[in-house]
């Protein structure tokens, strides 16, 4: 080995692109685990992240489910928040101006019970400065209508994707549920509807029973599983979807550190999203971004995008 090769390589190019929007690094936060950024800005500069995905926003304020809404499971958690949110009007008045000031890409997660509710939010955000990308949540397991029900039927996925695209001024990401027989069919439907990107996976429907109280741990009975316990499932699905469609993928599901992020990128993700890890370590997302850069340096990778789908 020559002396020149032993020298530290230049800083790797960490940029990736989702539907024409450039992220300074591939690490974003998962919807519902990061509020609208204010709380974690008390811990670090949000500019260290590639992007922030805000909590799901509906056309009007939502109460969400009764407590208990969260429960711990082995290497993960269950949640049934029920998409409590202050509504798009308050989001645009209070949260979006804050997000716009952060030097990072903003992904607005859109929630609804029915088609027209989703579209009212998309319309309200049309042309909104600071809302760089929309992520349509057709996969929340904790609301009675919309959400999951919409995300498990390929025809409905194609239709809501097409309608969202018609109403949106921003690129549209469809967030997919793992609670289906074949996630590739859903991914293809979203692609056929004109989606610009996909994010996966949302939480996996689960249940926990409190044997002391002899009742359900969550008031909603079922909840969405997240955390390291679902990571192998998520990696497998990212791999399958990456081979079925041409769309960029934001991969997520139990990413706790940079090693996990690399795994998702090798499986086919263009970007990665940090969710429950934020609750375990408030600095988690920033540390994943730093660690991903260190991985590239350590392995002599000049551009992080070389990792995308590199394992076949």
């Amino acid at each position, binding site marked *: 080995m020559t002396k020149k090769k032993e020298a530290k390589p230049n800083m790797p190019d960490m940029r990736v692109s989702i539907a024409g929007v450039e992220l300074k690094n591939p690490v974003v936060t998962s919807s519902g685990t*990061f509020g609208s950024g204010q*709380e974690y800005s008390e811990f670090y500069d949000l500019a260290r992240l590639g992007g922030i995905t805000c909590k799901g926003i509906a056309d009007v304020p939502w109460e969400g489910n009764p407590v208990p*809404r*969260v429960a*711990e499971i082995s290497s993960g*958690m269950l949640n049934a*928040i029920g998409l409590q949110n202050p509504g798009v009007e308050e989001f645009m008045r209070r949260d979006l101006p804050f997000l716009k000031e952060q030097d990072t890409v903003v992904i607005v997660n859109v929630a609804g019970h029915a088609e027209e509710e989703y579209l009212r939010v998309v319309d309200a955000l049309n042309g909104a400065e600071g809302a760089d990308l929309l992520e349509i949540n057709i996969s929340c397991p904790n609301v009675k209508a919309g959400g999951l029900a919409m995300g498990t039927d390929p025809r409905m996925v194609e239709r809501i994707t097409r309608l969202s695209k018609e109403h949106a001024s921003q690129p549209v990401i469809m967030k997919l549920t793992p609670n289906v027989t074949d996630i590739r069919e859903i991914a293809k439907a979203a692609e056929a509807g004109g989606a610009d990107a996909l994010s996966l996976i949302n939480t996996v429907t689960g249940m926990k029973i409190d044997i002391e109280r002899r009742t359900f741990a969550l008031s909603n009975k079922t909840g969405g599983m997240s955390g390291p316990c679902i990571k192998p499932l998520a990696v497998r699905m990212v791999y399958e979807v990456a081979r079925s469609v041409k769309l960029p993928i934001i991969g997520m599901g139990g990413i706790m550190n940079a090693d996990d992020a690399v795994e998702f990128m090798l499986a086919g993700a263009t970007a990665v999203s940090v969710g429950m890890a934020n*609750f375990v370590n408030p600095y988690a997302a920033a540390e994943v971004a730093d660690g991903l850069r260190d991985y590239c340096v350590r392995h002599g990778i000049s551009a992080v995008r070389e990792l995308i789908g590199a394992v076949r």
Partner: protein
Amino acid sequence: MINMKKRTGFVCGDKMKRKETAYIKEKKWLAEGIVSMRLSVSFAALVKAGQFVSLFVRDTARLLPRPISIADADAEAGTIRLVFRVAGEGTRQIAAMEEGEALEVLGPLGNGFPLEAAAGKTVILAAGGIGIPPMLLTAKQLLCTTGARPRWCTPALCVHADGWRNEETFLLDDLRETGNVLIATDDGSVGVHGTVIDALTKWENECTTGARPLWCNAVIFACGPKPMLRALKEFAAERDVPLYVSMEERMACGVGVCLGCVTKTAGVDDHSKVCNARVCTDGPVFDARDVVL
């Protein structure tokens, strides 16, 4: 519209929260399943009575933090004291740790009691069971024995009213250093046989000044199980005494993002735009009038 920050006089987002490695400086068992730990932390001087910390279990199967109220804080020594009950496997593992061992701590979290609301008044610190520990620091901060507080904040009188299960009256000696303690026990082994309300009612009857002069210049700070808080709310309303309650709920993040630990509010909350407030950040201390108990 309820603005929690305006009501309780606290401002969140003060950039004082941090996650760090803490060392166990002292550990002792106070009663069956009740452990006391002193931890070295960087934020001991910043702690306000009624705040809490999140403790992390050194077990990758148990990832979520355990919220624990702060029982005492020593700014000079750089330590906080936690007194908690072993409630499950996570707290069992933490309680099994020994002096010198390290664990991850996130804090200080939550708003704390509005100490200024007690200025010049008779302050009743009413607590039950594992709600008792934060009242030690509350009394100390009220009486200026911890940290520097302006004189005008000092209450005229500080009275504890505490309910324990049985004769294992943990923290009683510490509490007595900060004021008179009215004792109630579930089994009647010590003090009044009954609840904190029973102890307060007895005290009220014994006071020769009569009910009105006793309560006209008083405030109650409370922490304990929900039935106790509910009863206290009624007790306080009957006597027209301000009541601040410290609430408990299942939490995940502890910093206000996940919306797991909400409590129902009497009116539309300013942050959520629905009748839900976050116990971890809008609380844990609420004006009893603002929450549905």
